[in-house]
């Protein structure tokens, strides 16, 4: 501010006395209400500092007299969410398993819930899209070790396979080589026979009748006379195109020599019943369910 009586001759208005390149700055002050509003915002900001958390300190921060915390607010909202979900999950738990897929609302709920829970609990082994991996079944296809109906899937999720639970699926592929039941060349022969069951090519010079004999003597008890498997025992179908561990000769030789005993944990007690139900419906709806 300057002390002056400088009046601009053209506009008749006072100037601030500032000059740039001969151009003078007119004194055009702010409106009073504008200035008052500006002061009010300053007062408002000070009030904000006092009421809400505002100032970072060395190790913490000022909490404000309201002790507001966005984290606490989120916790309350999450609790409310759980409550809302709770009612719906009760409806899901009460519905008969076979009815859920027929009711679009329940199906949508089960699929949404199932997908989330699958991501948290099942994805580490089966993959986030349930496509599986070597030794971990693909749940999108139609080949099932322990059965693909809704009830069978529910049973498997609840009690697992070789999980140690009293009601678990229990079976073992014998280690025919390690136990000394079959010799190395017999194993190679029967591996070629197994490949021929599903139409895969066999090694030159392989004796088909010997393979059939070894298979009939050792494998039919679990895999059946035709090699179609047995879901009661978790014995895979050897005539289809899907192989849990791989179908090449070396893998088959390894399987027959050392046996296989994959483990699926039991989820009963770790997940609540309606969540397990949702999971069963989700897995069934992936497309392979019977």
């Amino acid at each position, binding site marked *: *501010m300057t002390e002056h009586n400088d009046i601009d001759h053209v506009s008749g208005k006072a100037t601030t006395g500032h000059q740039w390149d001969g151009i003078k700055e007119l004194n*055009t002050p702010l*409106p009073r209400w504008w200035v008052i509003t500006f002061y009010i915002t300053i007062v408002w900001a000070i009030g904000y500092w006092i009421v809400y958390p505002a100032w970072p300190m060395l190790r913490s921060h000022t909490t404000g007299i309201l002790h507001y915390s966005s984290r606490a607010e989120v916790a309350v909202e999450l609790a409310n969410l759980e409550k809302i979900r709770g009612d719906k999950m009760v409806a899901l738990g009460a519905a008969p398993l076979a009815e859920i897929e027929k009711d679009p609302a329940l199906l949508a709920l089960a699929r949404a819930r199932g997908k989330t829970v699958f991501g948290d609990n099942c994805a580490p082994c089966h993959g986030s*899209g349930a*496509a599986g991996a070597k030794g971990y079944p693909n749940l999108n296809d139609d080949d099932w070790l322990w059965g693909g109906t809704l009830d069978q899937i529910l049973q498997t999720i609840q009690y697992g396979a070789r999980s140690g639970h009293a009601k678990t699926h229990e079976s073992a592929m014998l280690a025919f080589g390690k136990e000394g039941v079959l010799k190395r060349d017999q194993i190679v022969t029967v591996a070629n026979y197994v490949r021929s069951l599903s139409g895969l090519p066999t090694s030159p010079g392989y004796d088909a009748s010997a393979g059939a004999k070894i298979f009939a003597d050792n494998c039919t008890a679990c895999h059946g006379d035709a090699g179609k498997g047995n879901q009661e025992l978790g014995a895979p179908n050897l005539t289809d*195109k899907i192989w849990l561990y791989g179908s090449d000769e070396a893998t088959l030789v390894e399987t027959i020599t050392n046996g296989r005993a994959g483990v699926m944990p039991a989820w009963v007690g770790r997940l609540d019943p309606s969540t397990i139900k949702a999971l069963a419906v989700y897995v069934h709806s992936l497309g392979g369910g019977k």
Partner: protein
Amino acid sequence: MNKPVNPIELQFEDDGPLYAARKKVYPQSVSGTFRRIKWGLMAFCLGVYYLLPFVRWNRGLGAPDQAVLVDLPNSRFYFFFIELWPQEVYYFTGLLILAAIALFLMNSVGGRIWCGYLCPQTVWTDLFYAVERFVEGDRRERMRKDVAGGSFTPRRVAELALKHSIWLLIAWWTGGAWVLYFNDAPTLVKQLATFQAPMLAYIWIAILTATTYVLAGFMREQVCVYMCPWPRIQAALTDEWALNVTYKYDRGEKRTSLKKANELRALGEQVGDCIDCYQCVAVCPTGIDIRDGAQLDCIQCGLCIDACDTVMTKIGRETRLIGYDNDINIHRRQAGKPPIYRIVRPRTITYVCMIVGVGAIMLYALLTRTLLDVNVLHDRNPVAVKLSDGSIRNAYTVRLLNKRGFDRVIAIDIDGPHNATIHVVGVDSVTPDRPAIILGRDQTTELRVLVTAPAENNSEKSVPIRFRVTDIGLGEVASTTDNFVTP
């Protein structure tokens, strides 16, 4: 010469340089062409605003029958025969673009005529001024009463109470009309009257009552001068052909009183038509002197034209000493040439073409808008699954939209790989070969659709697949394409 002054001292001076006190404006009542246009447009704008929520539009049983309705809970917007879904907000983008170009066009033709005639701030302020005039009297009376502000006689208190009551009533009704656009108006009116309406409705009415009361009752021209960005933008957009409210100084200078002008004229001296009566200043709602030339505070309402015309008629001189004109014509007249008006010029033609273009695009989009829609999302994890018999299956998430107001039976077909079969999770037991579902009215449904192709045609990595959904009753068809992938 520059002696430092303590700024604190300056703050306490009423007219100190830190801020300017508002000079209260007392616009005088005026009658004439532009005043009549303003009354007409005010009646039209307010009429539309206050009455539109009560206009009904039959959309069939169960659908809202309010012609204009913003249905936030169900995320729908209804405008007469149009019903918009959230994913169709681009129509609003189109409307905003149209509004902007229309504003540019108005500006290139008649300057800030939007400000003077149609802007809500102008319309409501004008209404509030009318109330003020009705209760407190015209300019001189109001000025006198304000100067004698200290003497609050019972009559004056009653006047002020009446004025503010009417203002608040108008403001309250303005806020009330606003909320009626967001719910069924007759129902909401009943709820509001019986205090059953949602809290949010009362809060919004309170907010809009307060803003209307403050902006139209107190802020008035300050909104136009200090708050509104349009004067600044307008100044950059205008050109020399735009018709602005202009004081035609070519026939106005030099100004002097009527008596003196007649004396000077008798002596053969050059005198203007302006007799310095200040009527144009007295009627101006922003309190400016138009004779200073085009300025930021002028909202181009034309009331000064009416005031000046009245005076010119009285003193027997030609009207429109102030009128919608431009500097080019002033100079042409000074040079003895007839004025020319160019409404049609490249700028206005461009704006009209843009309006027609955007309007045509919107109309096309509206007319070709589908009422049955299908979107498909291919499962990416896994993209394809090999089944035990060697066949390949792809999974898709198919989303169906039924924008009609009734339930429909929708069948889903595919044109894809040879001999491919389709299966929809949850509906297999009804029609396995051609799955059909019931799609609720005004709803979207998400389906998990599995497509299986036999092993025979697994040679190609990826083949196109088309999903076709058919309304079995109406025959309406929608389709979309995706790919069928082999691992």
